[in-house]
């Protein structure tokens, strides 16, 4: 606060209180100012000297200790965040103790708030109840902990500990009004980065709205005119009240209010001195390359923050907010609006560093499916050859090539990106910024996906296991791990499992010769027994070794994912209120109108967002500043749109989870659990046809294993038309739609074209699942099995014949056919089927007699006549 105090003209305050401080105040204040100047000019050694003098004068002053901790940390090359964290936490604790001790702690909102809302009948409930536990402990200036808390959050953020950062920032944000503007702005920006990283759209929208209201810088021209200091300063007011130049006040009544406030002799806004404003803006940096950039600028001058022109920094903040907005829109996949806003950002960034805007534009095109364009933009954006940037660049290229279906090219880029990361990590000592720029875990996740696509489950699992450190709360990660297990089992890479060819192979031992020749058929042994011989404890992921992929591990992963999904659904339904509360609270005036949720009004019609915007673009294609309220509505709209998408995605994930779970339980011989998973799958609303098909097939098999063939048959009979005909359980479109469905509407002419081109391409690569006809064959075969068990042999015979015509390669269908023939005493027919089956291997037995323990398999093909 020293700068504010010194700049305010009405400083003289000789009487009374100053004398209380033993006359030491002027000296300490001067020292504090000196230290701050040293810190700004990065003369850390001198800074420490001054601070130590202060420490002698004001022993145990938490703020002095705080600044010492900060300076020591920076001086030592930012190498020990743990120590700094400890120091800052101590400072915070000390502050709170002091506040308690001095009895000067202002009553907190939480204690009093509850009491009063209880007292009042009726009114308390309609007036926004704001008494969340964390908010509202306000201390005297001396004991204000907001800066220390902010710094703690900064460290957690750089360490990728987003939830920890969030737990600190949210209380600060809830009670942001008493915090001074510079700190408040930093808190908001950091919070915005954190919630964006957490993909929390509604919180992002909230903070974004608040930022624009409280710190929004009118329109572009204002910043470029330069001489608008006073006007800008009026923007730095509290939340909703009068903000004449930023036009977010929506209705007439509140603008009346604004007028009335301005008319009153004590305007709410405080005139900030230009120096202060300047200082505030200049502490904001754009983009991650800020270090490199400021180094370039400051080569001649050691005072970057002071030399930066005010108008430029005003625009910098404007650009920054604009980029945040684009990131928010990209997060919520409101691509149309994002396109417009990124253009706007490019305009603001004209003549400045536009690399971040370009990157976002590239991301936009990538999300749109315009992969070529995305590559071009990426190339254009990465002019700087900073290692961290180039690793991200490679990662992003990897993403694009993955989407193009070129998995091996994408693998090259991902591993290049990882290589750069690991070389960064080798830099000693490790710095905080290095931590925050280290995206290796994220890239590793991408790698995992790519390995999975290439059919390398063990490598993929290793990647996912690493990425677990940050993604452990994501249901998808666990689903992917389960998929790794299934793929590994299927490919025979797991101890006890068999290779796919082994699995579907019918082994026939040929015994004896001539009239004594006998055929001994062996099939399905692998399925019944070996896999579960793996020790139950093997699945643990711990340690540094590679995860042991197995079916029990798959099951565990699927349960994790389901649990997380249910948790998030549960908390989503609860968290809507608190996340909006501060927004609501900022506008007590139209609280009632706010409460009828914009969600409901607009969620059904996503097309409204674009139409509302039509009016906002003038003939030049530039974006006019949206009229009051519209902006907020758009943001809110995006949020509900995004929540829609997320809801649908979670539903999809849930379907996949239950389907996989049912499959795994069947493989593990738990028909009861398999049945319950399959039934859960079938109960899901809006289940896709493919998963419905799987649900019925799994449920039927489980019922069969539970000796309930009649009920099993009912599940399959759903697809019967007439007595003996099976309909296709799904169509080819279902397959494709399911594989390529993108929640984004690709109305853009070029986007649409690309999207139209893609499906065929991707479906070729990705659609590994049964074709509709094969699915039909599967149903026929399983119907045959059910009938055979129930002794309806003729019917079984009919079904299995149909099955064999649709899925001639299925050894299961072949076996069922042979079984039915044998039961019908048609051993001749059975023999000829056996000999025509594709997956049969005839093994002469004489070889095995010699060494039965270690039989070698010189597969001799018996010529079928």
């Amino acid at each position, binding site marked *: 606060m020293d700068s504010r105090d010194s700049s305010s003209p009405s400083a003289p305050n000789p009487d009374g209180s100053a004398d209380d401080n033993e006359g030491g105040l002027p000296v300490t204040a001067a020292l504090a100012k000196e230290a701050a100047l040293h810190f700004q000019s990065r003369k850390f050694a001198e800074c420490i000297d001054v601070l130590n003098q202060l420490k002698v004068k004001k022993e145990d002053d938490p703020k002095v200790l705080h600044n010492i901790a900060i300076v020591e940390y920076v001086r030592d090359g930012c190498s020990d965040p743990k120590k700094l964290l400890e120091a800052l936490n101590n400072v915070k604790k000390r502050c709170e103790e002091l506040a308690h001790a001095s009895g000067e702690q202002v009553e907190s909102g939480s204690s009093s708030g509850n009491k009063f809302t209880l007292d009042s009948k009726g009114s308390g409930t309609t007036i926004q109840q704001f008494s969340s536990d964390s908010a509202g402990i306000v201390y005297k200036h001396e004991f204000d902990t907001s800066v220390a808390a902010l710094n703690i959050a900064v460290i957690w953020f750089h360490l990728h500990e987003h939830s920890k950062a969030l737990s600190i920032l949210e209380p600060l944000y809830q009670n942001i009004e008493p915090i001074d503007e510079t700190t408040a702005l930093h808190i908001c920006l950091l919070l915005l980065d954190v919630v964006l990283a957490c993909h929390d759209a509604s919180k992002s929208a909230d903070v974004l709205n608040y930022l624009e209201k409280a710190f929004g810088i009118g329109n572009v021209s204002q910043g470029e005119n330069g001489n608008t200091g006073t006007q800008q300063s009026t923007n730095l007011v509290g939340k909703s009240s009068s903000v004449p130049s930023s036009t977010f006040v929506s209705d007439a009544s509140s603008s009346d209010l604004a007028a*009335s406030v301005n008319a009153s002799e004590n305007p709410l806004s405080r005139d900030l001195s230009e120096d202060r404003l300047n200082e505030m803006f200049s502490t904001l940096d754009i983009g991650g390359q800020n270090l490199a950039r400021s180094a370039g600028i400051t080569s001649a001058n050691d005072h970057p923050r002071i030399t930066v022109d005010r108008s430029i920094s005003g625009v910098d903040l404007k650009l920054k907010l604009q980029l945040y907005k684009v990131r928010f829109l990209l997060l919520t996949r409101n691509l149309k609006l994002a396109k417009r806003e990124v253009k706007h950002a490019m305009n603001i960034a004209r003549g400045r560093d536009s690399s971040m805007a370009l990157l976002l534009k590239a991301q936009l095109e990538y999300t749109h499916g315009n992969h070529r364009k995305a590559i071009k933009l990426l190339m254009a954006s990465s002019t700087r050859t900073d290692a961290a940037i180039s690793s991200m660049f490679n990662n992003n290229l990897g993403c694009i090539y993955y989407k193009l279906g070129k998995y091996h090219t994408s693998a090259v880029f991902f591993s290049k990106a990882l290589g750069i990361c690991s070389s960064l990590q080798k830099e000693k000592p490790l710095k905080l910024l290095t931590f925050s720029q280290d995206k290796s875990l994220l890239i590793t996740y991408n790698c995992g996906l790519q390995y999975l696509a290439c059919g390398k489950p063990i490598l993929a699992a290793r990647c996912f296991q690493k990425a677990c450190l940050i993604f452990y709360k994501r249901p998808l990660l666990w689903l992917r791990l389960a998929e790794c297990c299934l793929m590994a089992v299927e490919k025979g890479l797991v101890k006890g499992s068999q290779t796919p060819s082994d699995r579907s192979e019918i082994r026939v031992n040929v015994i004896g010769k001539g009239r004594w020749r006998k055929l001994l058929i062996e099939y399905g042994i692998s399925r019944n027994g070996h896999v579960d011989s793996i020790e139950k404890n093997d699945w643990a992921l711990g340690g540094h070794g590679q995860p042991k992929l197995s079916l029990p591990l798959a099951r565990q992963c699927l349960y994790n994912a389901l649990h997380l999904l249910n948790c998030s659904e549960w908390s989503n339904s609860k968290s809507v209120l608190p996340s909006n509360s501060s927004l609501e609270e900022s506008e007590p005036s139209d609280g009632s109108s706010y409460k009828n949720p914009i969600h409901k009004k607009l969620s059904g019609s996503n097309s409204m967002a674009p139409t509302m915007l039509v009016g906002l673009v003038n003939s030049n294609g530039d974006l006019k500043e949206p009229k009051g309220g519209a902006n907020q509505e758009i943001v809110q709209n995006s949020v509900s749109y995004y929540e829609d998408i997320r809801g649908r995605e979670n539903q999809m994930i849930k379907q996949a989870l239950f389907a996989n779970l049912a499959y795994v339980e069947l493989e593990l011989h738990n028909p009861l659990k398999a049945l319950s998973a399959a039934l859960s799958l079938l109960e899901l609303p809006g289940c896709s046809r493919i998963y419905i098909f799987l649900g019925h097939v799994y449920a039927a*098999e489980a019922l069969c294993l539970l000796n309930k063939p009649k009920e099993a048959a009912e599940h399959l009979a759903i697809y019967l038309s007439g007595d003996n005909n099976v309909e296709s359980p799904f169509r080819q479109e279902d397959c494709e739609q399911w594989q390529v469905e993108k*929640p984004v509407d690709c109305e853009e002419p070029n986007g649409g074209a690309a999207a139209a081109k893609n499906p065929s391409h991707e479906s070729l690569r990705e659609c590994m699942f049964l074709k509709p006809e094969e699915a039909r064959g599967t149903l026929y075969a399983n119907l045959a099995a059910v009938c055979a*068990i129930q002794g309806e042999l003729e019917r079984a015979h009919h079904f299995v014949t149909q099955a064999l015509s649709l899925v001639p390669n299925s050894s299961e269908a072949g076996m069922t056919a042979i079984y039915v023939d044998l039961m019908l005493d048609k051993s001749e027919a059975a023999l000829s089927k056996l000999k025509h089956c594709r997956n049969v291997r005839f093994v002469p037995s004489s070889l095995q007699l010699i060494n039965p323990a270690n039989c070698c398999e010189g597969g001799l093909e018996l010529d079928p006549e």
Partner: protein
Amino acid sequence: MGKKMLNLEEQCKIVNLLKSSSEQKSIEETVTDFFTNSKLRHFNVCYSLSLLLQDKMMLSSTERLVAFAILHRSYSSQKSAANPFISFLVNAACDDGAEKYERAFILQLLSSSNSNSSKEFLKQSASDYIKNFDPSSQNFPQREQLQKQYFEKVHPEPYSCLLQNTAVKNLLADPDVPCGCDANSAELDSQPGAKSKLGSGDRDEALSGLIANLSLEGLIPHWIRPVPPRFPVDEELVWLNPDNSHELQWDQGMCADTSRGAAVRDLIAKALKGALAPNQQEQVLVELANDPKLVYHCGLTPRKLPELVENNPLIAVEVLTKLINSPEIADYFTVLVNMDMSLHSMEVVNRLTTAVELPKEFVRMYITNCISSCENIKDKYMQNRLVRLVCVFLQSLIRNRIIDVKDLFIEVQAFCIEFSRIREAAGLFRLLKTLE
């Protein structure tokens, strides 16, 4: 690869057993010899034998008898119903296509365990038994009768899978003989030393091959279990953008001058107890205007608000106006609504309504409280005063369009009528009428 039913030792045992059946050894002896090794897995051995027995060609007649004897003996210590092969034995005994001596032998076996009936028939060798067999000496009971006799106390079958229960044996005869030849013709047996003919084969070789390869599992109908498809990769790939560099912040509040804040705090504390002097009031207002955050640190809490309102309404208005964005403002409003009605509180609310937008609910609530206070007051003089005040207050609110009269029309009208004797109330009533 598949699970073999018999280990090497068991295989040897069985082969030896079958060989020895043709020797002149009593059946009893042969069987006892067989069981001298306790390591045999009875079920596996018996199951193999039963599979071999099912093929009528495979075993010679003496071998069959010995095999049946083994099947029976393996479980003879228990009740016959507990023998897993009891139905196999009964079926064999009732098989009309089988040799009479064989059926008789089985019947004798079955009855031998029941009573102490003679086991004499086991004292001869298998070939002697066949030779000495007199078909007339034996009568063959009906299947039902046997089932009744031996299945009597059948335990309910333990859980087993239906698929497995319906299994058929996985052994198929596939005689490799030239066209037109009878596969059962003994000519095709290869003779030692003779040149092997087309379609010829050695029974012993086939037998030992079978014994070595038999497996427990039969043929069952098979289920196709489709592997679930991999979840599509949609927005899952992580696109990376550089982070904003959030830097550590210097605490500007270090050693800051807090004297003026302290002064304001002192003045506010005083203001709770009594009216401030005009210059003191001025100082508070100026300091609050200079530092918009000071209001949060001036020591006021919702609980203390009524005292401030009563003693220094102007300062209360100023503080509340500045706290309008505070998270605690709702608490302040609640306190304001619930405090005792007075000139000062009304003045504060009135001024607030022009300075900031108050929540509609709050204003409504306040008016309702005003009206009920007027009604409840006992002192006539005080009542008149309060009613006039409320009327002026309401008129001001209506004129300034702070409230929508429609919301409170009935309530306010009733109030006006009740106090119509007071001039201001009549005036308010007229104002209401003009708005209708």
